[in-house]
């Protein structure tokens, strides 16, 4: 049954991808991207990757679509009909595809427990997580503690990308910021049904975000997913009620503070570990019991990740939206 469902999803994904590339209407392409993300998320779920599925659904189908749409609003929705060197490109792509497909015959069998991926490093993590960290979700344990350095680096990449977008878009083209005209960007507030449904949904989306954040040690979830979900809730609010109301709830300065604060919280936990006599990001020293210390450390750094991701995604959204108002 899973096999049939998997093949169905993957075929659907390929059809969607072809449609994305073929369509000239960029709005349609972006919408299809959202659908493709949802299909990929479902497929991740079939492949036992619950954490990743959650992230892909929140980021790929939610936030990414909104960002692409706000970029389209600032550029244009139609793509010009010309394609450069169509046949040459097609030949290159086909040849490369054949090489990659040829290589797949040497890959270990799908789902085989004896594949090199499964036998070298990862059994150690599965074996030692209960002993060292004592939390059920191995993905969170690896992300937060064993590979905490990588995650710190990724949080800083997210932060840097956010700063980059602000640098590109925050400076107004005519140097002066256009004032917020009341009633100019009221979003969907004229439409009754989205407004009513949205108002009902937003508190629950926020609650779910918090659940995902703080339940990440026991089930699928964690800072990255929660950050994307909370950001999606606030973006939905901004779309329904207009951007200015959303900015009243969380002003720009607060968003910047959140983006930097989360990263500082993460790094700060590492520094505190050093001050207490451990290594950087070695949470064992945070409490009397090393396992308790690890759990405390993971909760703190996951909070840092969630705060940064929320702050950065919302800052990016507002940067695009403000640009639209000036144009």
């Amino acid at each position, binding site marked *: 049954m899973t096999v049939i469902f998997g093949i169905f999803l993957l075929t659907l994904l390929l059809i969607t991808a072809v449609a*994305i590339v073929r369509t000239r209407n960029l709005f349609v392409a972006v919408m299809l991207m959202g659908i493709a993300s949802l299909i990929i998320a479902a497929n991740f779920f079939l492949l036992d990757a619950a954490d*990743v599925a959650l992230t892909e659904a929140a980021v790929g189908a939610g936030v990414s679509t909104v960002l692409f749409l706000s970029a389209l609003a600032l550029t244009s929705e139609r793509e010009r009909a010309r*394609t450069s060197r169509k046949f040459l490109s097609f030949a290159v792509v086909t040849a490369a595809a054949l090489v990659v497909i040829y290589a797949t015959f040497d890959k270990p069998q799908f*789902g085989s427990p004896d594949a090199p991926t499964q036998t070298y490093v990862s059994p150690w993590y599965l074996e030692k997580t209960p002993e060292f960290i004592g939390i059920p979700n191995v*993905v969170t344990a*690896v992300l937060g503690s064993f590979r905490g350095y990588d995650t710190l680096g990724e949080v800083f990449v997210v932060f840097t990308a956010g700063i980059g977008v602000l640098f590109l878009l925050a400076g107004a083209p005519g140097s002066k910021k256009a004032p917020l005209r009341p009633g100019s960007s009221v979003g969907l507030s004229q439409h009754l049904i989205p407004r009513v449904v949205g108002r009902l949904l937003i508190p629950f989306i926020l609650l779910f975000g918090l659940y995902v954040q703080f339940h990440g040690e026991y089930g699928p979830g964690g800072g990255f997913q929660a950050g994307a979900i909370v950001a999606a809730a606030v973006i939905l609010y901004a779309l329904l009620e207009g951007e200015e109301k959303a900015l009243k709830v969380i002003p720009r300065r607060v968003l910047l503070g959140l983006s930097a604060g989360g990263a500082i919280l993460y790094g700060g936990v590492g520094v505190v570990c050093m001050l207490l006599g451990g290594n950087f990001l070695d949470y064992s020293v945070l409490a009397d019991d090393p396992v308790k210390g690890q759990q405390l450390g993971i909760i703190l750094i996951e909070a840092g990740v969630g705060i940064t991701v929320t702050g950065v995604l919302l800052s990016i959204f507002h940067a695009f939206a403000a640009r639209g108002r000036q144009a």
Partner: protein
Amino acid sequence: MNVLGIYHYWVFAILLMIGFYAVIAKLNLIKKLIGLSLFQAAVFLLYITMGNVEGASAPIFGFGAETFSNPLPQVLILTAIVVGISTTALGLGIVVRIKEEYGSIEEHDIQEIDRR
């Protein structure tokens, strides 16, 4: 080799190349970014596929499962997705600035203006 396994790898290859085609053949900058996202999604799919173990469950203890899929690729891809959206946003920011300066996001137009 079972059907689903080889099919997963082939879908990865084809999806990768569909994305690559959009990057090299399409002249619209936003379409290129969409192609890049597809390319990225294909890589994500490959990693998660390789971490899957037949008959296993998600790597979370306490739900009665005996064998688990590989948690490592999942950690990598989880963070990569969020980093991916941030870098895509950066790309979109650059495209918006190009549109403001050149009045177009088609590669031909931009090159023509540059030659002048």
